[in-house]
């Protein structure tokens, strides 16, 4: 007799590439309840689940998957929310393949359980069917918290501290919440209605959001400390890097931040219904190989470009973007010029970019990041024709707050220095976390940092001593020093 058939990892239905490359609607449709239950049944409900350690916020993964398997989808969503206030977002944008899923035991023999897809399913199901339940709140403490930045880090701190009974106010520079979730990640990957509804949940916990408040100018950190008992800085990595090659200020050359902000936050893809314009392009080059580059390239295609090329200086293997995103981009017809580096942008009399001089690269010995260092091949220069260039080579720390806050220490890249265990900065009562501390990273790491900071801020405001284990470690350190 044949062996019992193994159930394969369930694919998520998605829009056909030829259709979706012309619209901004979300690419995958998500699991149906049937598919979700089949996928959930693949979980072995391990006694010592490895997957939990792989998740930066330690979601009880087998527990929520079991609830899905049993058909209690709302229960699964509540289980998720015990550890993660933004499951519909994380289920979509987490690099699961390097976090919870890479360590899943079913992945040893076949493919890992699709934890991210299941998380997304449960959260979507709750939003579409259930009434969002507000968890039990602690009685008011009379303490007040000011949070700078309404990205995933700030929202997490806000949610956690509101639940503990503190009065929480978020100050956000832009006119909408969400940080990169709103201005950076495009609609077709993360619908803005989902971000709004997850932000609504945090607001229902009693959190106040003040928009259009650029801290450093509108109010200083000192002034915030007068109004609040503690302050959290979650200002993200919002300073776009350029290549520093000639011609970068030609018209038609964008940072990915500008290109995506125009399209997402300002809805330029619906110009002229919305007033913010974006250039109509035919031939677009996107420089870089990360998620941001994939988002920019796929946005360019949807804005109507005929030809979109991602130009990256290393090989496909070194591309930092998620496999799924590269795969989606390829399916949609985006070209890749790998092992290629731009050396100069060319333009016309009116100041418009017309071309890009590139040089071919080969991979040499590994560098400090462990990736093989790209080396230019002499004499291999050539020109490609472009009318738009989107520079997506990364983001640094915005200097506004450090510049206007005496005593706030930063490292040489301008990231705010914060203690790894408590997230406290060089100023007592001021905490920091997310991209502003660790550099451009991920949503879930920003949320993990937010949870650490929230716990420490709670202790600080309530006069609770730091946990004992830390003291023991300190003692050990002292011993070692002796």
């Amino acid at each position: 007799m044949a062996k019992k058939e193994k159930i394969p990892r369930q694919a998520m239905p998605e829009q056909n590439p030829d259709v979706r490359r012309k619209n901004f609607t979300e690419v995958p449709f998500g699991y149906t309840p049937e598919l979700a239950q089949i996928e959930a049944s693949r979980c072995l409900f391990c006694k010592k689940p490895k997957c939990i350690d792989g998740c930066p916020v330690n979601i009880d993964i087998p527990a929520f998957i079991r609830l899905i398997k049993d058909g209690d989808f709302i229960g699964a969503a509540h289980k998720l929310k015990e550890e993660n206030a933004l499951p519909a977002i994380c289920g979509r944008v987490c690099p699961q393949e390097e976090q919870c899923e890479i360590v899943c035991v079913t992945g040893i023999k076949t493919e890992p359980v699709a934890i991210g897809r299941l998380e997304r399913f449960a959260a979507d199901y709750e939003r579409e069917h259930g009434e969002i339940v507000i968890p039990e709140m602690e009685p008011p403490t009379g303490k007040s918290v000011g949070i700078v930045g309404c990205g995933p880090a700030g929202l997490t701190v806000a949610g956690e501290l509101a639940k503990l009974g503190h009065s929480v106010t978020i100050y956000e520079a832009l006119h909408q919440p969400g940080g990169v979730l709103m201005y950076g990640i495009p609609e077709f990957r993360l619908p803005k209605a989902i971000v709004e509804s997850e932000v609504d949940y945090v607001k229902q916990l009693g959190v106040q959001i003040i928009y259009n408040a650029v801290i450093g100018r509108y109010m200083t950190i000192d002034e915030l400390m007068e109004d609040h008992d503690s302050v959290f800085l979650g200002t993200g990595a919002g300073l776009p890097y350029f290549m520093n090659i000639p011609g970068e200020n030609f018209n038609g050359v964008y940072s990915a931040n500008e290109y995506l902000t125009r399209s997402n936050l300002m809805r330029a893809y619906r110009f002229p219904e919305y007033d913010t314009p974006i250039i109509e392009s035919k031939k677009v080059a996107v420089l870089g190989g990360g998620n941001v580059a994939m988002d920019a390239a796929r946005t360019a295609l949807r804005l109507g470009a005929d030809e979109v090329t991602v130009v990256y200086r290393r090989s496909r293997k070194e591309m930092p973007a998620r496999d799924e995103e590269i795969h989606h981009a390829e399916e949609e017809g985006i070209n890749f010029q790998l092992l290629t580096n731009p050396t100069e942008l060319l333009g016309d009399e009116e100041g418009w970019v017309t071309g890009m001089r590139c040089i071919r690269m080969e991979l040499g010995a590994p560098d400090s990041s462990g990736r093989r260092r790209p080396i230019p091949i002499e004499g291999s220069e050539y020109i490609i024709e472009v009318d738009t260039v989107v520079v997506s080579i990364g983001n640094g720390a915005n200097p506004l707050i450090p510049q206007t806050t005496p005593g706030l220490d930063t490292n040489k890249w301008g990231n705010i220095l914060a203690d790894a265990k408590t997230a406290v900065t060089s100023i007592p009562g001021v905490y920091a976390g997310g991209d502003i501390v660790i550099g451009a990273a991920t949503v879930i790491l920003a949320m993990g940092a937010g949870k650490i900071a929230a716990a420490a801020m709670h202790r600080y405001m309530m006069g609770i001593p730091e946990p004992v284990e830390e003291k023991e470690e300190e003692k050990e350190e002292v011993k070692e020093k002796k």
Partner: protein
Amino acid sequence: MNRIITKKILSQDVKEFVIESPRIATARHAGQFVIVRANDTGERIPLTIADANPEAGTITLIFQEVGKSTMLMGTFKEGDEFKDVVGPLGKPTHIEKFGTVVCMGGGIGVAPMHPISEAMKAAGNRVITIIGARSKDLLIMENRMKAASTELHISTDDGSYGVHGFVTDILQSLIDKGEKIDLAVAIGPVPMMGAVCKLTKKYDLPTVVSLNPIMVDGTGMCGACRVTVAGKTQFVCVDGPEFDGHQVDFVELVKRQRAYLPQERISREAFQHHEGCCSEK
């Protein structure tokens, strides 16, 4: 919040709004600006804070209707609200006692010059202000600029008022008269600022200009506002808006300001068409 308290028409297409914005009214300094969004579908439009009254909790914005967004804002009435007002943005003007400061405002540039003249005078400078316009009926804020300065000069391109010529002609005659000038500040259309810098460069007269590139966020996040100053890229919204005029690449700035001309035309025509059919009713 963001309610229009008073509205005034300063010239054919220049409007002045006093807006309720208590926090910005106290936090702002001369040289800073706000970004406003008229409504939910609106774009983010930078406007200099022309004046502020911390006691009343108001700021004054003066703008020229040049395209869809400013035309739409021009239709706002007292009591209407802006969807968003964010600021104060940009670095404040560097104010100290320099001695004699010549402040030059061209066209709508007179409005952003007002708080600077005022602050320079308050710091003990002798402030010679020169304001210019194409013709007499386009000249704005004459009385207020007079009050903000030690001495006021006026030029019009067509000679309908004041000196027949440009602000640079008056500056030249001041220099010719042997006026000892310690600092020049110029705000206006790029050609005007360029002309001022060309002249002051000849005399090694330090010159500050306030730049107005296209912006989006105004917080240093997007890079839309980049200009080349002394061969280096700067973000005007956070590194400026004021720079050493002798180092600014004005040619590049003009080209960058023209990046969206076709789209701006589409927006403007759609808006004017819409306005036209509605007001006929």
